[in-house]
């Protein structure tokens, strides 16, 4: 009997609500808009007297407005707590490097020289800044994808036929000599095994803390610094010699540039040298 009584009460309440809604719809319209206008004032404690009572009465009967009021209730103390975000210690270091360490161009002692040398110096500084940016890897990947598409997928692209030829090669399975076929199968099995290993390794890598990555970048930056300096010097000399028409000497400098590039490449990837410099 109790359950039936509760059910009747709910039915009565529902009927009353429905009646009030119908009357409002046929007369003044829904009171929700007006209630919403005053909700902020209610939460701020700026609503008093009759206005306060009217809004509270509305909230007792209106689920959506009550939910909105509850959300406003927890938003109010939460928003000021979002005024500061801890970006981590590396952030300060990067800002200091980009300002006091790198951007004091107005200081005569560290002023960038003009001409080709200045250009190389500026390019070097720009590159140093870029490589430390958090979004750098994603942007490089994006640029690489765009270049790949431009080279292979756009009408008139120089390597437009490359994907088709690669596909033909893969599809030409039966035409592959019988001796090569088992080797390909073995290679396929091996690749499958390696793939799962690579996926596991990649997942582990992704789970590494950002600090590790950052530390690695710092170390690599430090390791490649001499190489980059060397590269700048040789490029500068090469440009200068080309400008003077000394093409023979410029070609030697070009070789030196290639060697410096190779050294940077090795220093960047050779983790065994960490801490030795």
């Amino acid at each position, binding site marked *: 009997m109790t359950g039936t009584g509760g059910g009747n009460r709910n039915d009565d309440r529902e009927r009353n609500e429905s009646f009030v809604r119908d009357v409002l719809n046929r007369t003044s319209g829904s009171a929700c808009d007006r209630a*919403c*206008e005053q*909700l*902020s*004032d209610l939460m701020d404690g700026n609503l008093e007297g009759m206005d306060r009572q009217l809004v509270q009465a509305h909230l007792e009967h209106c*689920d*959506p407005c009550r*939910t*909105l009021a*509850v*959300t*406003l*209730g*927890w*938003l109010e103390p*939460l*928003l*000021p*707590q*979002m*005024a*500061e*975000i*801890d*970006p*981590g210690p590396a*952030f*300060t270091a*990067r*800002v*200091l490097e*980009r*300002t*006091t360490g790198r*951007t*004091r161009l107005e*200081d005569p002692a560290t002023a960038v020289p003009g001409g080709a040398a200045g250009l190389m110096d500026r390019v070097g500084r720009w590159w140093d800044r870029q490589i430390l*940016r*958090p*979004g750098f890897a*994603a*942007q490089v990947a*994006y640029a690489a994808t765009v270049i790949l598409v431009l080279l292979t997928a756009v009408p008139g692209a120089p390597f437009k036929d490359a994907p088709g030829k690669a596909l033909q090669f893969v599809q030409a399975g039966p035409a592959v000599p019988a001796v090569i076929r088992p080797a390909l199968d073995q290679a396929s099995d091996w690749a499958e095994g390696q793939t799962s290993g690579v996926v596991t390794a990649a997942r582990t890598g992704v789970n590494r803390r950002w600090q590790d990555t950052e530390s690695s970048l710092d170390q690599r930056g430090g390791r490649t610094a001499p190489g980059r300096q060397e590269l700048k010097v040789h490029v500068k000399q090469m440009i200068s010699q080309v400008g003077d028409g000394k093409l023979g000497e410029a070609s030697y400098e070009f070789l030196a540039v290639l060697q410096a590039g190779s050294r940077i490449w090795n220093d960047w990837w050779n983790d065994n040298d960490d801490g030795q410099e």
Partner: protein
Amino acid sequence: MDQSELLKRCQNGDELAWEVLVRQHQGRICSIAYGYVGEQDEAMDLAQDIFVRVFKSLHTCTDPEKFQSWLTRISRNACIDHLRRRKVRPPLRDIPAEDMVALASGGPNPEDEWIKSSRQKLVHRALHRLSEINREIIVLKDIQGLPLEDISGMLDLPLGTVKSRSSRARIELARAITEMDGGPHGGPIGAEAV
């Protein structure tokens, strides 16, 4: 620490003073950048750019009393410029404001912390459903706590307009949150968890 003296030292090229200034304000600048762009890496990059801009413009801040307001104005201008550039060149990724770095002001209870952190993420996502002007008002007034007069000057809007828009912006934000968090009855980190 005397802020006026600190600013003067920064303007005279004292690197230690500049470091202190950066540490004092980096949390706030990062929060403003995150509020405007809604994506972590992008916000951190932008926050660095803001500091570079501040460093180059330090000599233009002549009234130490208004340094906070000056700093916020530079940050806001940098964010607006960044968003304009982004409209021309869309971001590499979409903008789910996920997984922000450790948010300031920790607490002892892990469950409370989880709710708070989840709600902060929800708020950041909801912020990007608002109109630009309402988002700015929420970031500057409700999050950064700037006086309405300062916001009025920054946005070049009458004080009364900022005041009325502020109430509407909060309601719009609450509405966006309830919609994202499972409709009018709220989700696990919204209304019912209170």
